[in-house]
């Protein structure tokens, strides 16, 4: 048993070792200097942050409603919202194309309104939102669902209007989980590849995010791909460190009551 565990551990760690060490620092620095890097980094950061902002803005009220709804269809809606997590991103890309692509279900209507989202930077954001929103939604629905119902009841009995209850009680109490969910959403959006490739394409400076740049670089020079990969690993690692520290401060702030 211990041997099998050790093999798994090695299998999981060795690729990172190779990613970090192969070729040495010079070739990695050279790779970072590649013409693909800067536009892809800028596009990745820009689009992923916009995606997270939009997911949080729309997802928070939706989650609040879902968590409190006694409507039966709300439970089905919750399941439906989790679907993008378990389907392959490529399927998501096809679905987006069929819905909003030029010949898609709503594509013609959108085109008549003068808007063709497919194969643009907007499509990058749409693909990211599609695949990453469930992470935030799940965290937010759970956070709101876990709130002490008595607190909400007391808040209302004190005369709090629904908006006041939401902003002054529910939101502050759910905040740690909302931030955790947003962080996971950002990580997923930053790493999004399949749906982006299908729905937005792979155009430098326009739709070529870091993961797509890695794919392109692989055909030119593996060390460029390696350098870009390390960039993404660095972001992911920083995110994990942030979440760990953040969770610890949350726990300290929530020491159980004295009596």
């Amino acid at each position, binding site marked *: 048993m211990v041997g099998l565990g050790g093999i798994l551990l090695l299998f999981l760690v060795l690729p990172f070792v190779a990613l970090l060490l192969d070729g040495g620092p010079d070739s990695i620095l050279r790779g970072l200097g590649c013409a693909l890097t800067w536009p892809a980094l800028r596009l990745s950061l820009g689009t992923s942050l916009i995606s997270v902002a939009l997911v949080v803005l729309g997802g928070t009220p939706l989650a609040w409603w879902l968590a409190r709804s006694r409507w039966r269809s709300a439970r089905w809606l919750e399941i439906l919202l989790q679907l993008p997590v378990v389907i392959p991103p490529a399927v998501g890309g096809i679905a987006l194309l069929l819905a909003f692509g030029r010949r898609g279900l709503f594509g013609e209507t959108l085109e008549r309104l003068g808007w063709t989202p497919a194969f643009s930077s907007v499509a990058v954001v749409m693909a990211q939102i599609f695949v990453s929103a469930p992470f935030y939604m799940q965290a937010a629905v759970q956070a709101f669902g876990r709130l*002490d119902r*008595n*607190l909400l*009841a*007391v*808040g*209302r*009995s*004190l*005369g*709090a*209007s*629904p908006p*006041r209850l939401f902003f*002054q*009680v529910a939101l*502050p*109490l759910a905040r740690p989980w909302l931030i955790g969910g947003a962080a996971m959403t950002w990580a997923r959006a930053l790493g999004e590849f399949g749906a982006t490739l299908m729905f937005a394409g792979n155009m430098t400076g326009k739709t070529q995010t870091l993961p797509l740049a890695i794919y392109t670089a692989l055909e030119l020079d593996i060390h460029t791909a390696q350098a870009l990969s390390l960039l993404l690993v660095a972001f992911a690692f920083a995110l994990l460190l942030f979440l760990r520290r953040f969770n610890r401060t949350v726990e300290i702030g*929530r*020491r*159980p*009551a*004295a*009596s």
Partner: protein
Amino acid sequence: MTAAPVRRLSVAVEAALGPFLLQATLEVGTEPLALVGPNGSGKTSVLLAILGLLKLERGRIALGDEILFDRDRTIDRPTEERHLAYLPQDFGLFPHLTAAQNVAFALACGPDLASRKQRRSQAMAWLDRFGLGSVANRNPSQLSGGERQRIALARAMASSPKALLLDEPTASLDVEARLEVRAFLAESIRSLGLPTVLVTHDVMDVEALAGRVAVLEKGRVAACGPLGDIRKTPPTLFASRLFSSPAPVGADANPGPLNDGQFRHN
């Protein structure tokens, strides 16, 4: 604070509660009413119904002349407009706010458009009145059970309620805090003079806090009357065991445990 206090809370509610129908009619005057009954007899549901947090099939709830709910006249005031002070068993203090901020929250919900600073000083005045000035800046997790109960009551009173609803006010406290809180509540309830409904499992709560008792059994009021009468002729086996009086004639000799809820927080 405001106009003359309401002297009467009238409750007639009917709601489907899983295993049975809740069908309760209660009149609460100036004498506090204790609601007793076995676990799952619908005591807390009665409180939730009064608060407007339980879907009712039928009924009428009125505070003096003010109708809170009337199915026939399709009146159903939302909870936030009912002006009821609700103290749940664990007191319901907002854990992310200090004692003073908890009270200020209630003030901010009120009709007065006071500034944040004014609310803060009003909150301090409420805390002082309840002997809590020294803990104003602490969070609920840093306070004793007795202090939390007082803050919850101070906060509830800051919202100028017209009636008081207490759900097992001493159940989550240790024995000593229980004595302290009971004495404090008895005095507060008397001086506030609001119609008060108290759900409890504890005969000492009933004796210290209530003048009248309603015995609930499977969603129905088996009897309602002065404490002395209920004690003398308990309507149900539960009541006879709660008050250690002789069992009612014809009661089941072996009814199972009195109630398991009494110990659920120890």
